[in-house]
């Protein structure tokens, strides 16, 4: 069953047709990758999914409900979490506090006025945050300032924060961009583990073919704002249209 349905989505920036009639359906509990050369409209598509941009035409349905016109925090509360190209974490806060925030958001909703409760007495939240840090293998860093960590650790924390909300759909925007090989491999292992152990749907946008082919169940190739082909990784590898899009007409 499709958890995310994108139908005829188009987006135009002035004279540039960034997206034209994109149709995409992501099945539940699979990992769906969206690849394409620079300027293919991958990030525009992602921004349309999470409420940062509103497409000119078409519809985006998550679990049978439209996400269009909703604010980012509302879309997140529906069960969509997003990992950014550069890790977006709370740099001034400690790692533990970072991990507590999404759990507070899940427990208390989008806004809670509780200025007289003590944060260090919220045992249920702290317990869950500690457990998630344990899962992410970063329990020893819990009192560190998040900004002081390496990029790989920041990414790990960000993914952990997203997972602690128990989202149904995890969107990843080039999760290994700008990472060293070792960090990339760690991230791939982490994502594989998440995919195997949890009931979660993953949609991933990626440049790095190594990452895509080690994770994806299905791949959509985007070129010039429209989907070129959608198939399993094995079929995509040798597809003539994909080679054409990536390498130019002559290939």
């Amino acid at each position, binding site marked *: 069953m499709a958890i995310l349905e994108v139908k005829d989505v188009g987006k135009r920036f002035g004279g540039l047709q960034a997206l034209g009639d994109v149709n995409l359906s992501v099945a539940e509990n699979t990992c769906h990758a969206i690849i394409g050369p620079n300027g293919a409209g991958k990030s525009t598509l992602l921004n349309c999914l999470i409420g940062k941009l509103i497409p000119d035409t078409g519809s985006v349905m998550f679990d049978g409900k439209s996400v269009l016109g909703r604010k980012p925090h509302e879309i997140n509360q529906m069960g969509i979490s997003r990992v950014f190209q550069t890790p977006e974490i709370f740099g001034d806060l400690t790692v533990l506090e970072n991990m507590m925030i999404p759990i507070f958001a899940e427990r*208390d909703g*989008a806004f809670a006025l509780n200025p007289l409760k*003590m944060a260090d007495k919220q045992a249920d939240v702290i317990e869950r945050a500690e457990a998630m840090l344990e899962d992410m293998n970063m329990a020893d860093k819990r009192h560190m300032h998040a900004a002081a960590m390496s990029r790989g650790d920041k990414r790990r924390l960000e993914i952990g924060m997203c997972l602690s909300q128990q989202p149904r759909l995890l969107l990843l925007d080039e999760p290994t961009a700008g990472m060293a090989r070792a960090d990339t491999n760690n991230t791939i292992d982490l994502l594989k583990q998440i995919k195997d152990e949890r009931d979660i749907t993953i949609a991933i946008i990626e440049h790095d073919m190594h990452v895509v082919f080690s994770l994806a169940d299905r791949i959509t190739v985007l070129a010039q704002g429209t989907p070129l082909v959608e198939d399993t990784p094995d079929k995509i590898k040798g597809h003539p249209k994909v080679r054409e899009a990536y390498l130019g007409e002559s290939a």
Partner: protein
Amino acid sequence: MFGLNSKDTRLLLIVAALCLFAPFLLNPFPEGSELAQFNAGYPDLMQRFVIFGIFAIGFNILFGLTGYLSFGHAAFLGVGSYSAVWMFKLLGYNVLPGIVLSVIVAGLFSLLIGFISLRRSGIYFSILTLAFAQMSFAMAYSVLTPITNGETGLQVYTDDPQFLMGANSPNVPHLFGLQMNATYKMELGAWLFQFNAGYYLCAIIMLVMFYLAVRIFRSPFGIMLRAVKTNQNRMNFTGLNSRPYTLAAFVISGMYAGLAGGLMASMDPLAGAERMQWTASGEVVLMTILGGAGTLIGPVLGAGFIKYFENIFSKINDSVLHGWFAFLPDGLEDFVVAILHPFVGKGWHLTLGILFMLVVIFLPGGLIEGGQRVARLFRRKKQTPDGKDPEHHPKPAPHVAE
């Protein structure tokens, strides 16, 4: 104690002790001595220390935690003052209704201004709040004269209704009969210590407000406010709506400002429009940054520091300087006085400005950071002989790849 951890409890007790013993601490020099003019332990100034302390604590909840720099907080202070004086005019000189109303009115006013201004962030937010405050100031001066009494300032007249005034109620601000200007003077040898009822009322309220601020800092709500400052993007994509958080912080700090305004009017039942001017808004920004934005005690220190300069340094005039340097030969004496002249008296702003620049450049964390550095210096000196310095140990071997 009070649900705080030991570190915060200690801080609270230190502040309580400082407030309680302020009349002694601020009057270290005997009366009539050369240095007596550096004494700050008189009621008027001590009241101002704690009132502006409240103002700065509240401002710090907004600026220190969320990073939203409001340039219009004096408007809430002014609104608080006007509300309190109106209560004196209508009900009588008991300060309680005035203080309560000043908090409520400032809260409502900040809700309105915050709701509009918080649609923008950064410099645009600052400009919007500044515009609102200047607008309030100009209106209080002109078209709102029926409410604010314009340039004269709002004050209590003998023909005001004062419905709750009994036959023998005191004719000055009081709390259930305890007059705010009542001062007990204690002479100890050459020293004179003054214990003022109004000061202690303000000090108790400041302690409660300080305790409240500590609770806010340590609450889940406080973590969210710091999250707003750090990364609003991540906050929104974590399912949190940052707007109500910033608005709540804005209203809370507006209510603190209103309370400070109400207390100011309670100490001296008079409210003028100049209390809302942008210089007054800028002053609280200076206090917070000078003391250390985002720290608990910093803004209180900053408030005390600036008020001390304003009231003590400004009193040093040329004749005082001549008195100090009388031991020098005449020509040299005139020269030294001429050099120091721009820094004291009416030139106290210059000294304060230079100090502010030095603090911002060398101690970006404010006076608190200065204190921490000094403390660290002492700790290091003590620990080095043992070879157990926690900050200088061999670095753990970095792991390259796994």
